[in-house]
């Protein structure tokens, strides 16, 4: 195959006690920090800019450029906030990273903070991952004991505090300004932009918000240099990235590869589809990215190619569904998720996701009307681009793309329940007798 894996962050995840500082240092950890502290801070920013690293949290904004947007120092504080609120359906890369190798993130936080002139960094981790939070707290303790965190780090005169903050369950807090409000002790609702966080972020001070994987990639760039990083990936989507395969594949898991690898290549590495069944649809980057089908197996998974094919690279959360799966059931469930997680701040999202869920639920029950598909698309049209933040936009992605590729399944929802067309027990990993099927059949 043309592309092979490129383990950088994942290289030592299977080491004994991989999460400890000792293991991390035994495998070359904290070389990047030592090198960075011997550089001028702006040179570190330039190096990351030159590497082409783009945000690994979904949007793909160039990381070094984001750092460069901070205004000139005015003597007041500036902050780094790491977005560790990984909650996008299908996305499962940052949580295992922080479980297996939290020091990767901590070293990245220290280097980044040094580069942007920050003396108090925050890691906002979702509250629903208890052991990951334990590991992060411990990682900061270990780094402090080793002199990597605190005052006069490694004799450089540079000071840094790191606070690991646990959220409390809200998908919307993955949106960077909602995250900042949440970190300030408020309801996690997105802010109007501009001002962007670079100008007025945490406590209205200049703030960089970056994803876990983005920050964890920084130490490698500092050690290897921008050109090392650019040896991986494509011209405009440089470097390594975690590709998370889940669903109906033989060997689901984390596969770290150069950006630009294809699902066909990844599927081959993952042992193919479960039981040799046919691929039906998949998400390239979580539920908020329009779905793809088998015709997209050879789309290079980089920002540009996935965009040109009508979706988004997102978080490289490859949720893979085989021919047994009802796309109506899948999309309805995602929509119920967006309805549940809508923060309520703006009308298109708050009201629209409720309408979408109601219409989809009756289609799933086989009780849709002939006007329902048009109604769905009209609702999506009234949410996309009109919602306050990307949550609303994301809610429309699975619906419009599923109707585009599988319209006949939605049409069948005017007369036949989804679980009659696609018995759920055929999609599950084990045999069972669904309760809902009997109830729905009786109700119909």
């Amino acid at each position, binding site marked *: 195959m043309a592309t092979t894996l490129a383990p950088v962050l994942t290289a030592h995840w299977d080491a004994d006690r991989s999460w*400890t500082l000792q293991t991390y240092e035994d495998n070359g950890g904290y070389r990047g920090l030592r090198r960075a502290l011997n550089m001028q801070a702006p040179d570190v920013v330039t190096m990351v800019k030159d590497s082409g690293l783009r945000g690994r949290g979904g949007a793909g904004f160039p990381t070094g450029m984001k750092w460069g947007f901070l205004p000139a120092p005015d003597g007041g504080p500036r902050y780094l906030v790491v977005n560790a609120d990984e909650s996008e359906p299908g996305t499962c890369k940052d949580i295992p990273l922080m479980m297996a190798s939290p020091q990767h993130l901590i070293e990245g936080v220290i280097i980044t903070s040094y580069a942007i002139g920050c003396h108090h960094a925050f890691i906002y981790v979702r509250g629903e991952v208890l052991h990951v939070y334990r590991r992060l707290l411990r990682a900061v303790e270990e780094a402090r004991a080793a002199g990597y965190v605190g005052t006069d780090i490694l004799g450089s005169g540079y000071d840094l505090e790191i606070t*690991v903050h*646990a959220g409390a369950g809200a998908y919307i807090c993955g949106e960077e300004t909602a995250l900042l409000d949440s970190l*300030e002790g408020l309801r996690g609702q997105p802010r109007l932009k501009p001002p962007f966080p670079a100008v007025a972020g945490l406590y209205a001070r200049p703030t960089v918000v970056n994803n876990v994987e983005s920050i964890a990639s920084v130490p490698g760039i500092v050690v290897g240099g921008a050109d090392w990083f650019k040896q991986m990936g494509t011209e405009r989507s440089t470097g390594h990235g975690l590709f998370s395969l889940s669903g109906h594949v033989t060997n689901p898991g984390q596969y770290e590869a150069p950006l630009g690898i294809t699902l066909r290549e990844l599927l081959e590495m993952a042992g193919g589809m479960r039981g040799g069944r046919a691929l039906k649809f998949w998400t390239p980057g979580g539920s908020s990215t329009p779905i793809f089908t088998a015709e997209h197996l050879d789309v*290079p998974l980089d920002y540009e190619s996935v965009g040109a094919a009508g979706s988004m690279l997102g978080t490289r959360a490859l949720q893979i569904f085989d021919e047994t799966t009802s796309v109506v059931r899948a999309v309805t469930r995602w929509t119920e998720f967006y309805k549940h997680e809508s923060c309520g701040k703006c009308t298109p999202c708050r009201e629209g996701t409720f309408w979408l869920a109601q219409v989809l639920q009756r289609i799933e029950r086989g009780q849709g009307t002939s006007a329902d598909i048009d109604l769905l698309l009209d609702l999506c049209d009234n949410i996309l681009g009109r919602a306050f933040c990307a949550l609303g936009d994301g809610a429309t992605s699975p619906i419009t793309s599923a109707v585009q590729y599988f319209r006949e399944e939605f049409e069948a929802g005017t007369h036949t329940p989804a679980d009659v067309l696609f018995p*759920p027990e055929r999609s599950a990993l084990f045999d069972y007798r669904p309760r809902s099927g009997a109830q729905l059949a009786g109700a119909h």
Partner: protein
Amino acid sequence: MSVEAGRTPGQTHRTAYDEDTHARLTADAAQIVARYPQERSALLPMLHLVQSEDGYVSPRGIAFCAATLGISTAEVSAVATFYTQYKRHPNGEYTVGVCTNTLCAIMGGDAIWEHLSDELGIGHDETTDDGAITLERIECNAACDYAPVVMVNWEFFDNQTPESADELVGKLRAGEPVAPTRGADSVCSFKQMSRVLAGFPDGRADEGVGAGGPTVRGTVLARENGWEAPAFPGDEPAAGATTTEAGAGDGAHTPKVGDEQSSAERPAATAADSSAAQQENKQASDEAKES
């Protein structure tokens, strides 16, 4: 001094903490507040702290947070009701959460949910009569490669079936210890968990595994095949590493973008595959737009 600011200024909240408890919580709250440049940031961890004391966000806990941070009880309640981990009525000893978001649901999460709901006789956010289990339908918990997933007090129980989940809740109700697939050696109580989430370590970070099978699938596969990322400039290849495969070897021999064996070795099918020179101008203008 156990008086908290209730809804009416000057009135004592009728279910306020006793003096010892109040003193202990006050000391904890001071530690939390000290972590942040502005004290209001302490509210989320303080609500976890309240749950570690009362097993839910109690009226007296709300009053305590309000008094400590100098905000109104309405402001505290507004925050407490926004986040799903804050419980508005006493929680069971264990929160059992079944992921019923799309991927887990389809892989069998719906079956697990139906089974547990039937067996326990309770629905979403309801608690068994013995106070042992609060059952929840939960959203994606970032473990999709282990689907279907069940969380107990927010520890991972991977690759579940109705039978394994049944055994799990049976043990929980019998008071027997259970061990997550990836997590501490045993699941702690809801109150103990809440105290950790308030930022007070319980010394258990070194328990359990670093990763499960799916997490290291790529790591192991790469090693078996001798696949490596390009070596850092100046670094020797790792001892014993295979040097015959793409990506191995020193920097001088590592494939460059566009060269044979590089990740870009495929037909130029998209704009991203065209040359650097062609892309340079376009990139500059696109990046300007993205801002």
